[in-house]
């Protein structure tokens, strides 16, 4: 031990890295964390989860005022957007939270090594010209935007942007084209639509939100359309041409066919994210990537190289902050000789649109591949709180094994679906049957009662429908 500067050196201070570093320090290990960015918190706090939610929350209020929802509740308003203030509160949220991580590092005595880290060997890393040794190195370098071949992103110019640029726009575009109908495209597309943009989402596949339950994907499409988004599914982008402050996006059917040109003031490229491994010096430690450019690990998050571990977006699995965090906790506990486990079967996912869309476990399609299932569904329209709050859209769907009744997946579209899904994840961690959920007391009137009703519907006896 005494031979190394640190017991643990974490590369990257995103939710995976900073949580791992803090837990390692809490467990008595001498810990450092290298981060190249000016501030801690990674993609999530700086240009991901947090700033997007700050704009989503604020723009939701704008839409409630502008779109007539408040008028229907007896509140006459003529809202005026002050985008600078809205963007200011986004920046405040980010700086408050990234500063918070800096405080936590100090409190837990985690050394922040400022700069990008590069392996010299499996136990030696160079950061900003200095060399540090560690018994264990955790790669938590995260991911960055996947580029679209032939399309150049220029966030500074603000015409063709990635998610980072789409957070920073200084004016509401008149027309916005979002390339990619996944979570990030829909969230940021919703922000600017609410603030006044005409938004067109172009998705290569025949449905939005790949990876989610098909019922949910279809319902989501209906809802986004009703909200005024134009959806071009089964459509591919063949070119983006920028002229001054405008762009022309050429699209055609995914399977080929007649091209069409869409005018745009802003084009958001949101087709996915890829692991950050360039410049890490993985060749120095003989660590190879898999076909998708990711680092592979075993169940303990150890890589093939002794003493080198990896977590978060840089390894396989859903690219989600809480998956990264839980892997951070687990890898620290494994390094400390404890048992750190992440149950990859129970990782919830949330789309923070309005209504929110959330799921945990298997989709109905995936569950059916395993065997026979029973499905219970309950519409939010029949939930008294949702109805009272003028939030009729969405449903809850519980998928259970037909034989054992064990819950395999839960999907919700509801104003507070992201909060509701915590119960479903908790239940699934205990191997709950649908009846276990049905026989749990749910406060009235809450949106969560729809989970109970959907669970009752699995065995055929919902009350409120």
């Amino acid at each position: 031990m005494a031979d190394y500067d640190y017991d643990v050196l974490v590369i990257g201070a995103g939710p995976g890295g900073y949580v791992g570093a803090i837990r390692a320090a809490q467990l008595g290990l001498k810990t450092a964390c290298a981060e190249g960015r000016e501030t801690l918190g990674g993609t999530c706090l700086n240009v991901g989860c947090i700033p997007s939610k700050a704009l989503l929350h604020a723009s939701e209020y704008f839409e409630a005022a502008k779109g007539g929802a408040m008028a229907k509740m007896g509140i006459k308003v003529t809202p005026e957007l002050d985008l600078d203030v809205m963007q200011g509160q986004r920046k405040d949220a980010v700086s408050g939270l990234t500063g918070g991580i800096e405080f936590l590092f100090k409190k837990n005595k985690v050394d922040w090594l400022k700069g990008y880290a590069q392996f010299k060997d499996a136990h030696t890393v160079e950061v900003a010209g200095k060399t540090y040794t560690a018994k264990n190195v955790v790669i938590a370098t995260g991911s960055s935007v996947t580029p679209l071949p032939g399309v150049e992103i220029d966030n500074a110019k603000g015409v063709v942007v990635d998610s980072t640029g789409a957070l920073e726009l200084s004016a509401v575009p008149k027309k916005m084209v979002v390339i990619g109908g996944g979570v990030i495209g829909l969230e940021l597309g919703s922000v600017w639509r609410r603030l006044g943009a005409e938004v067109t989402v172009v998705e290569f596949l025949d449905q939005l939100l790949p990876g989610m339950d098909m019922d949910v994907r279809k319902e989501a499409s209906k809802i986004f359309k009703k909200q005024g988004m134009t959806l071009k599914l089964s459509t591919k982008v063949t070119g983006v041409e920028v002229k001054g402050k405008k762009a022309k996006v050429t699209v055609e059917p995914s399977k080929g066919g007649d091209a069409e040109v869409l005018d745009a003031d802003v084009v958001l490229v949101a087709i996915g994210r890829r692991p950050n491994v360039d410049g890490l010096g993985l060749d120095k430690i003989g660590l190879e990537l898999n076909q998708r450019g990711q680092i592979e690990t075993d169940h303990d998050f150890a890589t093939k190289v002794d003493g080198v571990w990896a977590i978060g977006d840089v390894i396989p699995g859903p690219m989600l902050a809480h998956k990264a965090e839980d892997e951070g906790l687990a890898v620290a506990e494994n390094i400390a000789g404890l048992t750190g486990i992440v149950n990859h079967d129970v990782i919830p996912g949330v789309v923070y649109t309005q209504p929110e869309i959330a799921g945990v476990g298997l989709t109905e399609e995936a569950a059916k591949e395993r065997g026979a299932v029973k499905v219970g569904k309950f519409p939010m329209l029949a939930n008294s709180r949702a109805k009272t709050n003028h939030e009729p859209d969405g449903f809850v769907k519980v998928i259970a094994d037909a034989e054992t009744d064990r819950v395999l997946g839960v999907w919700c579209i509801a104003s507070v679906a992201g909060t509701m899904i915590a119960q479903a994840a908790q239940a699934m961690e205990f191997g709950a049957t649908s009846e276990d959920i049905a026989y749990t007391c749910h406060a009235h009137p809450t949106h969560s009662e729809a989970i109970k009703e959907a669970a009752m519907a699995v065995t055929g006896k919902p009350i409120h429908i």
Partner: protein
Amino acid sequence: KDDRVIASPLAKRLAAAKGVDLDSLTGSGPHGRIIKADVEGAQPGTAKPKAAA
């Protein structure tokens, strides 16, 4: 009273219906919890079964 017995809500209900004493069971669910299957496989008679109305 069943402070130390950890069982799922459904398992508790089934145990009451079948007259199975949860104390007599070993849980096979996550974290050793007694689940439906444990109760279904148990011998009734350890507790007072519920009389049908």
